[in-house]
């Protein structure tokens, strides 16, 4: 009896834990191939949250650039502006697309030229899910 109670309690705890957690999945990450003298590029991907709870992308770490920031390109009456944002919210059971002309991780001050096809490592930092390591290929598109 005691054992069953303990078991049920564990199921409940795990269940609640599983419910409250966001479940983050990164789909098709890629880095834009740029001319060899360019100092900047960008990382794109789709962030899927398969959990119930919301999460937020709050930072990105990488060795390839001196700085990686979350940016958004906005079209203001035809003028394309880059806006630095602190975070990207990904609500439960939704996805956010980081794509050219929209949200992207701006890689500033590339330490070396990027080679088409090579894989680059990044650590994405989420408010709830913590640190997620990804590898993204350099693509020309």
């Amino acid at each position, binding site marked *: 009896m005691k054992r069953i109670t303990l078991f049920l309690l564990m199921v409940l705890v795990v269940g609640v834990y599983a419910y409250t957690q966001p479940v983050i999945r990164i789909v098709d990450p890629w880095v*834009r191939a740029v001319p060899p*003298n*360019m*100092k900047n590029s960008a990382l794109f991907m789709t962030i899927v949250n398969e959990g119930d709870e919301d999460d937020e992308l709050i930072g990105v770490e990488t060795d390839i650039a001196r*700085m990686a920031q979350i940016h958004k390109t906005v079209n203001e009456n035809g*003028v394309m502006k*880059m806006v630095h944002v602190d975070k990207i919210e990904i609500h439960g059971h939704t996805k956010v697309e980081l794509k050219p*002309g929209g949200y992207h991780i701006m890689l*500033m001050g590339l330490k070396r030229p990027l080679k088409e096809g090579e894989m680059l490592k990044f650590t994405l930092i989420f408010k709830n899910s913590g640190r997620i390591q990804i590898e993204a290929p350099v693509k*020309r598109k």
Partner: protein
Amino acid sequence: MLKKSVIWLFLLVGLVITTVSAHQFYGYPYVQKIKDFTLIDQNGKRVSFSDFRGKYLLVFFGYTYCPDVCPTSMYRIKETLDRLGKYKKYVHVLFISVDPERDTPENLKKFISYYDPTGKYITGLTGSPEEIKKVAKQFRAYYKKVPLKDNPEVGYLVDHTAFIYLIDKNGIMRLIFRPANEDPEKIAEDIIYVIKYFGE
């Protein structure tokens, strides 16, 4: 006097084709005679807009430090050129820098050769800030430096309009493609239509 009436005739013809033609333009029809200007190309030579007479031109204002919009636009231009087939030889691209302080001819050369390794289809143009300002004004291209905080590596970005202008072989603007005009196939169809209309 005669020259002026010829220009008016061109404008009139342009207006007529944009209104009665059956072709649905993907780009925004706009007729404007572009006044001649001179800038410095990627080889450090002074070249004039009129040197490109006889070619259909795609003009884009951007800068080589540009992290998202310019690579996207340049890639779209490259994809468009690849879809022009036998008409590609009538088309030339002018990439005009809105960041002349950093975009030296050497920088421009590396940048454009990435999108055009042959060096035949794209010319990069830079100049003094005053020269660039004058040229941009004619195209109603807007640009403004935006300093980046805590970022000496990049220093500043430039907000700018990202239109692609199609100029016919006589130096008259015909169409404007906006950033939302993402499809290179449709841009190429417009260009081919205009080339067929005004002649190769």
